[in-house]
């Protein structure tokens, strides 16, 4: 696959065709005078999705909508809102779709739980397979001495 080339290319084509001289990601005139607030704004923006882009945060997107949202986030920060308040406000307006980090809830527990479930299942499969192999081995009813002999023979092809 020409991978991200096509997806990104296609999205960008659309965006740039719509607005041939579109705005770019965070611009100097957006930056807040208070560096602490600006740092928070950047961190927040990196977690918010540009709704018209493909998997881009508003922090890195060139789209006009992303710029509007960046400005909005900064206005709320200036007004003294907490990060959570801003996120809640945006989710109420745009839905969970705007959060790049999906919230943990009924519809997403399988998503968040997947890594643990898979790790656990895989681990169990390995343990069960191992136990079965061991029981097969003991079914051969080798004595201790025979085991030792076998080990020694198996060890022989070792360098």
């Amino acid at each position, binding site marked *: 696959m*020409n991978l991200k080339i096509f997806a990104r290319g296609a999205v960008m084509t659309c965006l*740039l065709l719509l607005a041939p001289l579109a705005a770019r990601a965070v611009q100097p005139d957006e930056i807040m005078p208070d560096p602490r607030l600006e740092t928070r704004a950047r961190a927040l923006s990196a977690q918010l999705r540009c709704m018209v882009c493909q998997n881009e945060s508003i922090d890195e997107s060139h789209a006009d909508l992303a710029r509007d949202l960046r400005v909005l986030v900064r206005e709320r920060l200036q007004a003294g809102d907490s990060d959570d308040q801003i996120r809640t406000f945006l989710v109420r307006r745009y839905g969970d779709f705007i959060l790049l980090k999906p919230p943990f809830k009924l519809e997403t527990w399988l998503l968040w739980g997947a890594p643990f479930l898979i790790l656990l299942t895989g681990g169990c499969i390995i343990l069960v*397979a191992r136990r079965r192999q061991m029981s097969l081995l003991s079914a051969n009813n080798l004595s201790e001495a025979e085991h030792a002999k076998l080990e020694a023979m198996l060890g022989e092809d070792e360098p």
Partner: protein
Amino acid sequence: MIVETGHYALVLALALALVNSVVPVWGSVARDQRLMAVAPPVALIGFGLVAYAYFALTMAHVVSDFSLVNVVENSHSAKPLIYKITGVWGNHEGSMLLWVLVLSLFAAAVALFSRSMPEDMRANVLAVQSWIAAAFILFILLTSNPFARLAGAPVEGNDLNPLLQDPGLAIHPPLLYLGYVGLSITYSFAAAALISGRIDAVFARFVRPWTLIAWISLTLGIAMGSYWAYYTLGWGGFWFWDPVENASLMPWLAATALLHCTAVMEKREALKIWTIFLAILAFSLSLVGTFLVRSGVLTSVHAFASDPTRGVFILLILVIFIGGSFALFALRAGGLQQGGLFAPVSREGAIVLNNLLLTTCCATVFTGTLYPLALEAVTGEKISVGPPFFNLTFVPLFIPLFILMPFGQLLPWKRGDLAGVAQRLAVAFGAGLVFMAVLAAWRGGPAVSVILSGVAVYVILGSFVDLVRRLFGGGVSADMVSQRARGLPRHAFGTAFAHAGLGITLLGLAATGWGAEKITALKPGEAVEIGPYELTFESVVPRNGPNYSELAGRTVIRSKGAVVTTIDPATRFYPTRRMNRSEAGIATLGLGQVYMSIADVAANGAVNARIFWKPLVALIWIGALIMAFGGCLSLSDLSFRIGIARRARKAQAPRPQPAE
């Protein structure tokens, strides 16, 4: 005319693929040598035909034959020649043709280089490969024909997407395809083994070099793609957890697991079921990637539903090949004899753990990529799964892998001594800790970066502990060392380099935490400090390229007052598509980079600039190159051993057990 012959060659290739889909399998079932012998020459001719079809399409692009839809939509007479050639795979139809070209290239390679392989095995492998080829050639001919003509040819074409007019694009897709499609060979081997029911060390020995080739190409392809994104997209990022990127990461993870697994199977005849499973999985993920990228399902579920022809066709291919192979797997896996016993603490044990973690990583990426699509299809609810999710799940899964890597190299087969290995790794581990402490005290910075840097140092040093012990153990003379070096199998060096390469990439990733970024408006003559450097923006220079015009912002980089170098970040305008593209100005200084992109050039010559200092960033890609180098070292060793196997067979002598 050449276009029609190309089209015809592709149809002929389909016919040959169909022949090769049936005759060799029949031969292997009926034990008819003549029928099995059909497979190699037909595979070679098939490759020739597809290569001709590809050549015909390339010619149409090179001479700007605007009677072809494909050329009109993706080319322009003023486009530089190199992009006329690379533009062939810069679009859906052409890239699918490249896909099939690589597929038949691998079939031809098997036909040529695997003479020593048992005849029925080769016949079945080539047959399975032909099934895949037939399906995809049919896909091209029915839904994505690059040879479609226009009734009235326009005078000029629409040009190629400017983002794709870049040297990076010239290398990235073919490499990635070699990887993606190279995994088709391991798939074909697995399917052939399941059909014949013979799954043993011979299978592992033959499948290993092909897995390595695919893995090396994937590694390079992904690294190249990430560097391309880094310097083309203009905001300094190199990995976005984009679904399309994930589509290439998943096969890489599966191929990495498979690579380790085949080693166990070849040496110890253990983990057969796992090896077959991973071989099928790796290519299945390549197919899933193809489906994700090619069907348009990523843009939106609705876009897919509104023009489903291509998507449904690939989905059908997907279901048949993945479903069919796993059904066969389920049927046969139960009857497999598990050989090679091993204690939990042993190299086999370490590789089992490696496989468990890598597959979980892979499954996590898979879930994260497809969950939003599935949820939207089922409930209609839209959610986003972005970088924060992957950083929170993928990274914790990968850290244990880094810790485990040097252990796996040092543990002996069958049964190992954990305490002894830990003792040998103490130096590497200690060095990692010291590095961490020094960094924390001297540099500070984010805790994650400090910790990951320490881990990286441990991995890099730990990768070479085994080699150092085997070369210099017991304090010997230089002569002895070089003699020992010649005696060591090359794959021992390969493993060390590949592991160290991953550590080096990790160090580059960790160092991003110490980067600096400035977003500012710059007037001509204005200076700005970034990291250890001072940048002076001099002026905007208008320039003209073959099919674009650009405004380049000449900027001088100084270190303590002395001029180091100059960069020309530019913003380009491509008139045909009325598109802008930024061309970042990058200066590699040591292992770090100063990165600058500009936009919005005002009438008085002022620009909006985005400037980064990225320390050690080059290590990210250098690490990938070293990984690939390690892979090549191992590959040179493996192919040599295949040669040995052939000679040994001729001498009617049993091949000696490969010494570890």
